[in-house]
């Protein structure tokens, strides 16, 4: 028990005041008042702990100095004798004199002695003071008690007036050591009277004083800091367990901060979670000790990663490193800010967030002066330091996390990244390509291979070798590793690569990234004969129309238009011919590709109109588009293997390999490294590079040509964030069109491009509407109303839908090949008195179309 004694030379003025009856009077007569009419209103004294007097509770009066029994009333020192002030049991009522219940003292405890009173103030502290005040009034009572304390109290009689303003703190202000005993002391009548006060005053003391309470806290703090050693792999995990136990005692706090909320989901598992995580971190750190500085990555994880608890949580908290690693692999790492984590714990949302972050990162990266050029070569490149070099502040942290101090892309993350990030990107399935169809059980082997992997790290490895040699030694080949290793055609053997990165190698990196089906050095792509572009000019109109239909494009009136369109289509599908020769090709940036991938998913069913618009666009955009389509195709096949949304799980992912994201990353990185400046907009490949790229793309196209144009298979497991879109059955061949290639897909309704719309078509709406398909009889007319039925039944016509129908089926049926703008349709509806409305309300979803 520690006590604080504050001495002040002169007491605060307030203490000098003597209480008047008025001051003390309470509207409610105290029980004792009622009992014997005694004037003593001791209960009405304000507790000293209250700061109403303007004094902090640590104030003391001069009586501390003056008297041996200083009225330490304002020092809320914990006293073990709080029970002294408890309400005396009801027999007190029978006491002859007035015995204020609060001050009724039970028998002195053994700790109290007259000697101690003078010297150790807090023990006696405030409870004695009231006695002084009461002395006159209750002599008999005091006598009864016969306490040595009483005598001491008598000494204070010198300055009784001083105490008058002082109010005895309720017993509750004392530090309660044994709540149970206190309970026992409560008198039934006054139980509520003092009980409520207890908590608040208790808190106040706790806050105001560095007393024992805080001491206890400090102990906790010490313990928590001891977590760190615990997390070391060598440290016994039982330590963690201990903490858990101690934690479990204290009631769970309701999270108040966003971070708290975010982590609250994981709070329960936090302790357990941190272990595998930290284990991993430490293990990677160990690897770094071997020469790879991947510290930022870990720190990043440490800071931001919230690990989704694996479903198969082991019962025991103690886990072997193997298990831990295994768990780690199967865990989904979600990077997000705390608020994002709070907002939605759906993994896809977070995944998307991650995507977005990556994209924006990419923007930052497209900084004309690569940081690598400005950053000095870090001395610590081979040292096991974990932090990012402080010279590289410009770099996005996320990217920094991916590289070592030499700006080389860390392949350490292969084992981790390939597994985990594959999942992260699983939603962006275009990025995932199926390479092997290894049975899933192999996954377990990976985990067990991990230790080997780390063991091998004892030698100094090149980053690339970190993965591959291990895999070589293991009898099982990790498909994604292989893939990764060979994913970039240009990548030299790994050890050279690092050198290269330092020496700014001469060889420009190859744009194979845009083509996901990468040519492996060991297994060069089969050179398929390139398809020759048919000479559309020699075709008959009929053939042209047929071909166009095959592409899902509507027939056109003008022959030249058809030929043009066909050429565009052909180029789009076969991808390439024009690319290397005609125009310099923009290096697809990571962000671009990502966004395009996303667009593709979110894009509406292809329409011929889009093709038209395409004419105006750069051909180089088509490159990316075609590449995208190819990727998509390739991905579709891989997707077919996924049978359920669970396909996003690692198990499924294990059979696939991540190619694009990383290789794209590699590309951009190597671009930097090799000094190719990647400007977001106007940077083009050198011819040689372009040529290489051309072949790479070609290789892909040849692959693609093998597969006949099929209808786009909707993803079996579309990421939930992607808007599910219906494929209108009426557009048979649209699947083959690479089509829209930029973000203008945002206008999924016919975007008003007045030039492309045929205003004369307005007159054709009525025939189109009234046209009756002879085979129409079979359908259920009651459930599948034709548009004419709807009009006749006064259904409000949704203009977007109606326009879409007109531009596809409606005009097709009557042999019209034009397209009409929704605004035209609206005008027509208004002329015809057909109730119509915009889908998104009158205001419209996207644009203000004006008018009501």
């Amino acid at each position: 028990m520690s006590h604080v004694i504050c001495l002040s030379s002169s007491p605060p003025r307030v203490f000098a005041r003597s209480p008047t009856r008025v001051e003390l009077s309470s509207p409610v007569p105290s029980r004792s008042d009622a009992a014997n009419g005694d004037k003593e209103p001791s209960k009405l004294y304000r507790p000293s702990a209250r700061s109403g007097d303007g004094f902090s509770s640590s104030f003391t009066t001069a009586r501390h100095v003056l008297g041996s029994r200083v009225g330490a009333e304002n020092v809320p020192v914990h006293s073990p004798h709080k029970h002294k002030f408890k309400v005396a049991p009801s027999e007190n009522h029978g006491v002859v004199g007035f015995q204020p219940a609060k001050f009724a003292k039970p028998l002195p405890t053994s700790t109290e002695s007259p000697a101690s009173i003078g010297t150790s103030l807090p023990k006696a502290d405030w409870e004695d003071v009231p006695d002084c005040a009461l002395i006159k009034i209750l002599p008999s009572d005091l006598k009864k008690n016969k306490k040595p304390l009483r005598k001491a109290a008598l000494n204070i009689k010198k300055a009784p007036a001083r105490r008058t303003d002082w109010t005895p703190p309720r017993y509750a202000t004392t530090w309660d050591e044994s709540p149970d005993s206190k309970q026992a002391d409560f008198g039934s009548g006054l139980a509520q009277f003092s009980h409520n006060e207890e908590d608040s005053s208790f808190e106040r003391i706790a806050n105001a004083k560095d007393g024992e309470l805080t001491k206890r806290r400090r102990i906790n703090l010490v313990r928590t800091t001891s977590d760190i050693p615990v997390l070391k792999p060598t440290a016994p995990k039982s330590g963690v367990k201990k903490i858990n136990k101690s934690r479990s005692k204290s009631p769970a706090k309701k999270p108040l901060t966003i971070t708290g909320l975010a982590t609250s989901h994981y709070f329960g598992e936090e302790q357990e979670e941190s272990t595998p995580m930290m284990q991993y971190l430490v293990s990677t750190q160990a690897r770094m000790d071997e020469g790879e500085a991947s510290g930022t990555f870990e720190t990043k994880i440490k800071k931001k990663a919230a690990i989704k608890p694996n479903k198969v949580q082991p019962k025991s908290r103690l886990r072997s490193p193997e298990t831990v690693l295994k768990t780690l692999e199967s865990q989904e790492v979600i990077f997000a800010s705390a608020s994002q984590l709070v907002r939605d714990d759906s993994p896809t949302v977070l995944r998307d967030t991650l995507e977005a972050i990556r994209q924006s990162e990419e923007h930052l990266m497209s900084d004309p002066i690569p940081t690598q050029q400005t950053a000095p070569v870090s001395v610590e490149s081979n040292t096991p330091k974990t932090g990012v070099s402080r010279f590289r502040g410009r770099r996005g942290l996320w990217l920094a996390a991916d590289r070592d101090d030499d700006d080389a892309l860390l392949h350490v993350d292969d084992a981790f990244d390939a597994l985990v990030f594959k999942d992260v990107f699983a939603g962006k399935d275009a990025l995932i390509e199926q390479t092997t169809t290894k049975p899933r059980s192999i996954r377990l082997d990976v985990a067990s291979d991990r230790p080997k992997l780390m063991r091998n790290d004892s030698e100094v490895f090149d980053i690339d070798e970190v993965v591959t040699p291990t895999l070589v030694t293991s009898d099982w080949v990790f498909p994604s590793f292989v893939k990764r290793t060979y994913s970039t055609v240009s990548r030299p053997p790994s050890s050279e690569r690092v050198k290269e990165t330092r020496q700014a190698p001469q060889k420009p990196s190859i744009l194979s990234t845009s083509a996901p089906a990468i040519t492996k050095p060991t297994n060069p792509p089969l050179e398929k004969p390139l398809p020759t572009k048919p000479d559309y000019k020699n075709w008959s109109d009929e053939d042209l129309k047929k071909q166009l239909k095959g592409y899902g494009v509507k027939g056109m009136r003008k022959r030249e238009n058809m030929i043009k369109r066909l050429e565009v289509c052909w180029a789009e599908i076969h991808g390439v011919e024009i690319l290397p020769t005609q125009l310099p090709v923009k290096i697809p940036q990571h962000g671009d590709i990502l966004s395009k991938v996303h667009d593709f998913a979110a894009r509406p069913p292809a329409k011929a109109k889009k093709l038209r618009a395409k004419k105006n666009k750069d051909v180089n955009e088509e490159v990316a588009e075609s590449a995208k389509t190819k990727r998509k195709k390739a991905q579709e096949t891989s997707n077919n293997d996924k049978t359920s949304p669970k396909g996003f799980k690692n198990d499924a992912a294990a059979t696939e390999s991540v190619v694009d994201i990383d290789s794209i990353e590699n590309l951009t990185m190597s671009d930097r490294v090799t000094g190719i400046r990647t400007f977001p907009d106007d940077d083009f490949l050198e011819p040689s590079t372009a040529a290489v790229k051309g072949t790479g793309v070609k290789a892909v196209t040849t692959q693609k040509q093998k597969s006949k144009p099929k209808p786009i298979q909707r993803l079996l497991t579309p990421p939930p964030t992607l808007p599910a879109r219906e494929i209108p059955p009426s557009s048979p061949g649209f699947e083959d069109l690479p089509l829209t290639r930029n973000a203008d897909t945002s206008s999924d309704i016919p975007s008003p491009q007045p030039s492309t719309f045929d205003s004369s078509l307005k007159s054709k709406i009525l025939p189109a509407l009234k046209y009756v398909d002879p085979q129409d009889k079979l359908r259920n007319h009651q459930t599948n109303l034709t548009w004419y039925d709807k009009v006749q039944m006064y259904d409000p016509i949704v203009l977007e839908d109606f326009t879409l129908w007109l531009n596809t089926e409606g005009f097709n049926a009557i042999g019209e090949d034009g397209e009409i703008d929704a605004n035209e349709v609206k005008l027509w509806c208004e002329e015809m008195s057909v109730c119509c409305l915009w889908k998104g309300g009158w205001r419209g979803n996207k644009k203000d179309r004006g008018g009501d």
Partner: protein
Amino acid sequence: MEPRLKPIPAFYCVYLLRSTVRHSSLYIGSTPNPTRRLAQHNGKVKGGAVRTSRLSLRPWEMVCIVAGFSSNIAALQFEWAWHNAHLTRHISSDDRISQATTRVKVDRRTGKTRKKVGRPRTGLTEKLSNLHLLLRANYFGKWPLEVRFFNEDVFRSWTLWTERAEEQISQDIMVVLDLAKTPEDDGEISSAQRPAKRRKADLIGNGGIEGVDPTYARFQEPLQKLKDLTDDKSFKAVCDMCDEIIHVEKDLFNICLARGCESLTHMSCLSKKFLDEDESSPLVPTTGICPSCDTQLKWSELMCALSLRIRGQKEVNKLLKKRNRGAAAVAAELLEDEDSSDSEGEEDTEPVKVGGLVDVNADSDEDEVASIASMEPVEPLPQKLPRLLAGGIDPQMFSIGVVIGDSEEER
């Protein structure tokens, strides 16, 4: 969008409300049940509009309704156009009577002035002339509307205006002065019926607002007729026009609404016939003659019955449950049912029937004129309600909320 799987509403009207105390106070709203709505405006039933809540202006009278809207959307569009006659595109700028006013708003704090387009204050004549203009508009002009006046003065103003107007509204739009007939008090009340119900039944069809039948009761007879036909297993439905079999389950077909006529026709056949008869409208017929009984049929009524059959199974069942004692009696019963379900706090059919749009601008201040659109999805409201409830708000509030959702005219 699968826009409406609800049948065409039995009744939907846009109304003009006038304060009986101060005749210059006017209000435009829309409702599927004018009687109930008027009671709401007058504070007799919960769910009135803020703008009509001033006690000094009550009671309000419904001086005129434009009825026959085939959907709530149509009605709300008309309401908005009427309310914002200075903005609507359906009135050409040459014809426009109400011009937008510019209001200068001074920010009290900053002292800055802002110019805002304001809705002009319009009197009865302007409202009526705007109504006339709108009914002449292409868009609304061919809708199966009818105009009913419940006040002689207003009707007089209307006729005065129409005489002066250069152009007349379509002949298909019926304009009537529909004053309530004083019911002959026969003094005896049949013991079989409760007085209230009896009173309602007497009022329906007898003019005035109370005479409006907002229910599907008028379709009870044809529905019953059709049911009797189709219940007979041996019955083969054949189109009177094309003599082909009508597949009752999947074809769109009409049954003549005339009493006793059992003529069945494909919708397409009948529509073709009607359109051939009446060349004024190339797309949607307005009226036509039944091929069997030569009764003149309104296309809108036929469609209403058809949509009721194919989309309103619930309503059909309700209707068929009632004994056929005439439309007025059935309507009174249906209204009674509705009222009782109203008083239970939640009415599940009406708010849905009303659809997803609410005109929030109908009774709001002049500020919103700047915003062109008048519709806003009503979804937020139902979402709010549970929250209100969760917040421990008086359950009364909930019932108010429901009524708000139900009374689609304004928030």
